[in-house]
């Protein structure tokens, strides 16, 4: 693949679109360019998928020296794990910008530039093969997100956005320290000082060092996921974020945490991972049950979905730290599905809010009478979120549970299963109170979804059912790569819970 | 030509430096403070010259020329700021100029 730097194109096309948007004035033209940029990025990432060979490791690699004296390079590449995330990312951004076309009228130019920059940052995180480059993108993505919540957000947007940024920065600074430590430890032992992720992953590190570095990475990723008890920025950020901000936040930003665990924590620090397994599994189960119980009592729709995210992402960490093939694959599927489903749910809530200007469950009711199309789609995504078999949500949960049962301690799996009762409870109860029953007088004259809004949701719905009916189409992308991760972590010197 | 011993240079430089420092710390008029800063600079310059002679290294004297030039420029800019400040605030008492207080 010498000819075309396709990953760079996927990465930088949105930036090019953003530059053009700055020069334009007309709303239609600006949206046209933005949609085009996002669409091209999506098409190219689908092309990468088409040309991708499952199991052949890192592909489409590009690398140029950046600061050779320090061993820093501009290096991109995809394997199955990152490919799925990039696909999810470009897909959601494409839909979000289309959705914004129908809804955003306030500071359009700034909005589009922010969104496109955000896309660049997130794509970069998944594509980077150099730690410095990775870190740059990791931080870069914070700024547009900060702006997105801070400018287009709700009433308490300043509080929420500062909390979000500070919380995330706290984690990522620790990660930066650990990256530097990794650089020096690796350099001292091998003589080659490099930030190359692949090379660093090959190395072996002492147990004490692993533990310290693991904790630093863990905090960064656990805050992103977010795991209980580092989750409290999430509800605030979601409640204040604009609709598309919530979609991106829940859809992709959270996945960066899970991606980090799979890509870095497990292969880099297998011994530390094994030592931390029990603790992380415990936190995961707590997140599943606790998030669901807290979600049950929320009065604000967005908060409810935010806490449901905490619960669902618990299955991701549960799967990853089971260190089994099924668990890791389940975590990947759960991330993919959660991105689609929760993104769609936030779109639904956004549409609800656009019309009723209310997000409090108690003030809604009976909306199914007026909006049959919306009611059907909202129910569909609620059921997908519950983990109804046949839709995408079930696949990840099921496989993560299979993985959890494979650890020597079955109690994690057994407890986590009860999360599926609770998730059904809060979602169905919410749906009942919002959509069923009798219609409020104030909502009698509201319109059902427009064609554009319906199209966005239907696009998500199709992928959701595809991933539910034939998940193998997605699993085969990454299963060879997660297998490598699993072998790496199970090659640890320290024994974990899984009997060898 | 009699060259005084290094100690005299250093003593003179130190004296100038301390006088300047005390001026900066004690005086309230901004113009005086500014002149005291010039004194500190001169103290350093004298020390430079002294070492240059003692070590027979012309670089020290070159530095003095250099720093004098910088000091002249600094004086010009500094005085301009002080004049502007004096016009704006109608005082040169440093106690009253505390806009940067946290």
């Amino acid at each position, binding site marked *: 693949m010498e000819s075309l730097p396709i990953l760079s194109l996927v990465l930088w096309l949105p930036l090019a679109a953003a530059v053009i948007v700055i020069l334009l004035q007309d709303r239609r033209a600006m949206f046209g360019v933005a949609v085009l940029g996002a669409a091209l990025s999506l098409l190219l990432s689908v092309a990468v998928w088409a040309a991708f060979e499952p199991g052949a490791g890192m592909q489409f690699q590009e690398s140029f020296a950046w600061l050779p004296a320090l061993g820093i390079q501009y290096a991109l590449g995809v394997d199955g794990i990152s490919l799925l995330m990039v696909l999810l990312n470009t897909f959601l951004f494409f839909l979000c910008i289309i959705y914004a076309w129908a809804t955003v009228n306030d500071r359009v130019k700034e909005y589009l530039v922010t969104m496109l920059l955000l896309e660049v940052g997130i794509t970069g995180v998944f594509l980077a093969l150099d730690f410095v480059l990775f870190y740059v993108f990791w931080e870069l993505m914070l700024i547009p997100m900060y702006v997105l919540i801070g400018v287009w957000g709700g009433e308490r947007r300043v509080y929420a956005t500062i909390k979000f940024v500070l919380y995330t920065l706290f984690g990522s600074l620790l990660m930066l320290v650990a990256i530097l430590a990794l650089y020096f430890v690796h350099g001292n032992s091998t003589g080659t000082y490099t930030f190359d992720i692949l090379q660093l992953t090959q190395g072996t590190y002492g147990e004490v060092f692993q533990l310290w570095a693991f904790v630093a990475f863990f905090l960064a990723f656990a805050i992103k996921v977010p795991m209980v008890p580092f989750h409290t920025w999430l509800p605030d950020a979601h409640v204040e974020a604009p609709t598309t901000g919530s979609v991106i936040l829940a859809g992709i930003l959270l996945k960066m945490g899970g991606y980090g665990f799979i890509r870095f924590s497990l292969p880099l620090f297998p011994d530390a991972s094994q030592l931390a397994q029990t603790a992380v599994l415990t936190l995961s189960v707590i997140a599943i049950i606790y998030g669901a119980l807290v979600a*049950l009592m929320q009065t604000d729709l967005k908060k409810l979905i935010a806490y449901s995210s905490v619960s669902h992402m618990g299955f991701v960490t549960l799967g990853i730290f089971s260190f089994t093939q099924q668990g890791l694959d389940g975590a990947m599927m759960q991330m993919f599905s959660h991105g689609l489903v929760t993104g769609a749910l936030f779109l639904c809530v956004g549409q609800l809010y656009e019309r009723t200007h209310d997000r409090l469950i108690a003030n809604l009711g009976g909306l199914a009478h007026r909006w049959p199309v919306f009611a059907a789609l909202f129910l569909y995504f609620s059921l997908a979120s519950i983990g109804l*078999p046949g839709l995408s949500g079930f696949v990840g949960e099921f496989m993560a549970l299979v993985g959890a049962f494979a650890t020597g301690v079955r109690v994690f799996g057994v407890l986590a299963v009860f999360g599926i009762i609770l998730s059904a409870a809060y979602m169905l109860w919410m749906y009942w109170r919002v959509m069923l029953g009798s219609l409020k007088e104030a909502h009698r004259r509201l319109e059902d979804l427009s064609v554009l809004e319906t199209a966005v949701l239907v696009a998500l719905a199709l992928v959701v059912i595809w991933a539910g009916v034939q998940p193998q189409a997605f699993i085969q992308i990454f299963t060879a790569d997660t297998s490598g991760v699993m072998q790496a972590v199970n090659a640890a010197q320290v024994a974990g819970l899984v009997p060898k | 030509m009699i060259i005084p011993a290094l100690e005299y240079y250093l003593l003179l430089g130190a004296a100038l430096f301390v006088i300047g420092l005390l001026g900066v710390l004690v005086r309230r008029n901004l113009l005086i*403070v500014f002149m005291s800063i010039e004194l500190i600079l001169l103290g350093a310059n004298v020390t430079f010259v002294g070492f240059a002679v003692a070590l027979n290294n012309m670089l020290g004297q070159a530095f003095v020329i250099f720093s004098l030039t910088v000091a002249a420029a600094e004086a010009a800019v500094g005085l301009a700021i002080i004049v502007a400040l004096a016009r704006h605030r109608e005082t040169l008492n440093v106690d009253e100029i505390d806009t940067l207080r*946290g």
Partner: protein
Amino acid sequence: MINVAWLVPLLPFIAFAINGLFGRAYLKKTTGLVANAGVLGALVVTVLLFLAQGGHPEPETVTLWTWAASGDLTVNLDLRVDALTLVMLLVVTSVSFMVHVYSIGYMAHDPGFWRFFTYLPLFVFAMIMLVMANNLLVLFVFWEAVGLCSYLLIGFWFERRSASAAAVKAFLTNRIGDVGFLIGLILVWHVFGTLDYDEIFAQAPAVASAMPGMLTIICLTLFVGAMGKSAQFPLHVWLPDAMEGPTPVSALIHAATMVTAGVYMVARFNPLYVFSADAMIVVALVGAFTALFAATIGLAQNDIKRVLAYSTVSQLGLMFMALGVGAFTAAIFHLATHAFFKGLLFLGSGSVIHGTDEEQDMQRMGGLFGKMRVTGTTYIIGGLALSGIIPLAGFWSKDELLGATLLAGGAGYLLFAMGALASLLTAVYTFRMIFLTFFGSTRMEADRFSHVHESPAVMTIPLLILAVGALFAGFVGVPPEHGLIHDYLHDTFLAAEAAGLMHAPSTAFVVTLMAISTVIAVFGILIAFSIYLRKRPAPETIGGAAPFIHALLVNKYYLDDLYDLVVAGGTRSIGWLLAWFDLNVVDGLVNLVGVVVSLAGNGLRRFQTGRLENYAFSVALGTALVLAFYIFMVR
């Protein structure tokens, strides 16, 4: 013929897709025809399949695609056709078709007509897939899918608060069962290393001897799933509430097909269950207890559909009792006959509700027979079959499963006593219902009574066809233990035979038992006749004689209230507590960090005086200190 097996689920699915996409805007009333065509197609293909597979069908499977392959976990989407599947398919598609035809009349004036005929074929599709599944995961997938359809159809009239509540209750109660199922499923995978039926069954004996405890746990967790779906105590509470749905739904989903999925599952996994005597006895006891328990509640209910709902719970309990003693064929036999006569009774009650302008309270009916002769006649046939009167369908199957408990010996005598008592009560409440509804003098207002009318032909013809089924379906099991169905299912339940659970009763035993069964049923009908028609003793005096027991029965042993208080209320309380904890403690700690930092900043800003000389002084002092350090310490 196996190659076209996929047509069976596909046709209803196509009907669902067409109605779902175009029903609201374009098809409207035509949706009924589309749905009927789809289900009829499935019925026809099933019959063809049945004929083509011959008298002793070998299990055949066809793989559609790989669902997921991760490491050593591979799950294929397979369809399976064997004797048990075919029996189930015949029951499901035929009853479904009858209900679809009937619904055209019953739902004719409902604004949600198209929606109804979208959900109903979706259910048929899911139910067909459930019985055609060839591995546990696909079974689970469609197990939940039928649950979803049940949720949608119970809450069909979603503007009614009680309907939405019942729908959510049904889904959540089923989910509790499904947790058991899911745990069992995952354990099966870890123990057997596969989820495919045949591979599991092949390994069952080895696993049974290597880890009998684990096998019992697997059987019991799977049974928890069956308890949820088939409404067995203590997870039965959702089924009576499910009567909030339209009556055809109650007939199809909550009597004839979906609720029998639990029975089907245990029967399907007979090669596992026969190796766990502990699990078997639990299944039998839960079944027998539920049968008796639900029958007693059925005695005191006044809503015609609720009586039938408790009756369904009770009959399902009898089926589990049979499964528990190893009489798998008898259970499936009863499942099939029950589908016909209970479907008939529900559709009949729907016809009554339809003809009396939405009246469901039997205390405000009476004397309807003269006005609704077809409905009344078929209803009585269904009632006789349910009570177990020779030679109707229910007699043969119920007789056989009661006999099986006796033959099992030991705890079987207790089971027999419970089952026999439940049968007696069944006859009582069934004929209480019939007498209160159709006979005696009417308790309706005169003008309403004058408007009572027989239902249209599109509703009565399915009743007549099902009545024929209720009359004659039992003959597939005659003579007892050696009928057609026994022969047909013989290979499916070989494991039970191998485990010594099959008994060959003597002719004398069979005849005696038939006599006892008949006496029980007739006695029950006579009791009902005496109390509710002759009023000797009058029903009020019985209730008055033991007010406590009467209150207990009317209020369903207060179990629903207990669940509301403890389970629902408890969960909400914990949720409320944790939400408070999250907002104030967890997030409080985060905000505390923020407060501490800003307080520290507030303190430190005092050093930032803004005065030049202070800064200069600190610079000087700092320099002096550094110098002093170097001069005095470092040297």
